[in-house]
């Protein structure tokens, strides 16, 4: 929130360093006159899991586009790794290289590859064409792939075409791909959309498990899922932060009820 900036100024003389892993301040972006993000500020701490909620068009996906370099903001600061990197100056591949992984709203796995090959391509390591032609990426040990696959419970499907997986399994494969990237920050867009209740529950457990070692930002509409995560919630509306805090406090907020939850 905007209130963070002045407080950090008061007790720290160093200007650049912020406690936060991800730091957005005064970010705005407009598309053809539509203000998708309007003076948005919020921060995510290391090893923090944060849930983002908000009505359609609140700017949740655009916010992720800005952090991952797909969209450049018109103004504002987007800093990563305690202010070390200015994300507004980098492109998608560079940002991914810094350790920001993204899971899309619709599961996007490489459908014509096997499940194992999807992980092979996602595992961290050199990503230039020559490494892929003759180098390291061809010598990745199968156990590293299996390790990830067993974590997302897809080991038995390792040689199956990813396109033949069920919707829920694709979501899990994509989470597995994100884990393989060893990111510091994971952005997860509607991970449980279209999942059964049992899958939703298992996904909440998996994400909590992941958040033990890295920061996770989850965008989700499913309030019972957000409740199951049990983390700090940020509600966006019209491209700004409407309310922030524990789910119960946010859910009780008059403005949030007005625009999002309904009476």
């Amino acid at each position: 929130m905007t209130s963070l900036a002045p407080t950090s100024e008061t007790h720290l003389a160093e200007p650049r360093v912020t406690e936060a892993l991800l730091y957005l301040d005064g970010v705005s972006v407009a598309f053809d006159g539509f203000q998708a993000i309007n003076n948005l500020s919020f921060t995510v701490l290391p090893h923090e899991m944060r849930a983002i909620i908000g009505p359609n068009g609140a700017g949740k996906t655009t916010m992720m586009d800005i952090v991952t370099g797909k969209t450049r903001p018109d103004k504002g600061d987007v800093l990563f790794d305690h202010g070390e990197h200015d994300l507004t100056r980098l492109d998608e591949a560079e940002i991914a290289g810094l350790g920001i992984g993204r899971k899309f709203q619709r599961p996007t796995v490489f459908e014509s590859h096997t499940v194992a090959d999807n992980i092979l391509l996602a595992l961290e390591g050199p990503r230039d064409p020559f490494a892929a032609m003759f180098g390291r990426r061809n010598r990745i040990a199968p156990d590293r792939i299996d390790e990830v696959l067993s974590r997302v419970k897809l080991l038995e499907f390792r040689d199956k075409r990813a396109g033949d997986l069920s919707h829920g399994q694709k979501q899990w494969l994509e989470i597995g791909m994100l884990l393989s990237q060893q990111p510091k920050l994971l952005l997860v867009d509607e991970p449980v959309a279209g999942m059964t209740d049992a899958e939703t529950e298992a996904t909440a457990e998996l994400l909590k498990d992941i958040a033990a070692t890295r920061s996770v930002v989850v965008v989700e509409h499913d309030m019972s899922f957000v409740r199951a995560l049990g983390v700090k919630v940020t509600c966006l509306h019209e491209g700004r932060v409407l309310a922030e805090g524990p789910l119960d406090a946010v859910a009780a907020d008059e403005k949030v009820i007005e625009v999002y939850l309904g009476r």
Partner: protein
Amino acid sequence: MISARLFGILDRSGIIFLVVLVGALVLVPALNLFTPEQSALHVPNYVVQLLGKYVCYAVLALSLDLVWGYCGILSLGHGAFFALGGYAMGMYLMRQIGDRGVYRNPDLPDFMVFLNWKQLPWFWHGFEWLAFALPMVLIVPGLLALGFGWLAFRSRVTGVYLSIITQAMTYALLLAFFRNDMGFGGNNGLTDFKDIAGFSVEAQGTRATLFGLSVLTLIGCFVLSRYLVTSAFGKVLVSIRDAESRTRFLGYRVEHYKLAVFVLSACMAGLAGALYVPQVGIINPSEFSPANSIEAVVWVAVGGRGTLIGAALGAITVNLLKTLLTSGPLAPFWLFALGAIAIGVTLTLPKGLLGLFDALPGKAPASADKPSSPIRTQTARHSE
């Protein structure tokens, strides 16, 4: 050790394909050179030349399949790289004519004497040596692909827009090479070749050797392509084809991959052109015509996109049909037949001719690197 790696990259159909090629490599020249002309087994000279031409087309199709079938870059200008390789070889062959031309000028090719030029243009220097011309066969198309690809892929031009500008590229080259003052023989191109590496291009032995070299080139390009598409590089290419922005968010520099495969493919196409020219005896600007490049796309689509073998098979099949159908009373209808083949294959054989073999009983289902349907429908649209 090397053979283990080879078997790793070759599946059953790959091995069959190589066996057939090696068989052709041995049998065709042998039956041409060492059997009497009246023998039933004799392969006549014109057949050797014709087959050599088909094999060059197969290499072109293979190069196109590498970018289109695996990376989703539908190049409608690959004929340009083929023609540039052909021109580089043609320039060497022109310089070999020496003073045996019509005007008996030891330094200048006939068309330059005819145009009243006094000295050899700077870009013709060096082409008197095969050791200079051969690298040029790869470097010239490669550089064009590098420049073109760097601009196009960096600004993220994709899909139909990229296809259109590749088409514009080959058309621009067609117009440029038509001009006499470009210094490449204008409308007539380069022809009347005499010698290659000291041997007469007309000699039976030279023709058989050129055929053999073409088959060896096809084998080499196939094995290299197969190595690449089975490596992680090939997997990234397929990822780019199917989900480009996902690949980018995974941290891959999509433009570098596209550029690498595009340049490599252009070099292969150039090599095919260079082998083609001494066998057909002429290179002229019509090789740059957009229709040629589109025809190459039809070969790949007919044979089976994203399979390599299918591309080569398609090039040979379609050209065999072309030879048969354009020589008889059916000649005026060839383009209709080509159109019908392209549409027919797209509608009834979505995996191309190679898909027929996959459908045979006892054969494993299609491998993972087969393209998904949405992009394939583009074939029919573009081959109009």
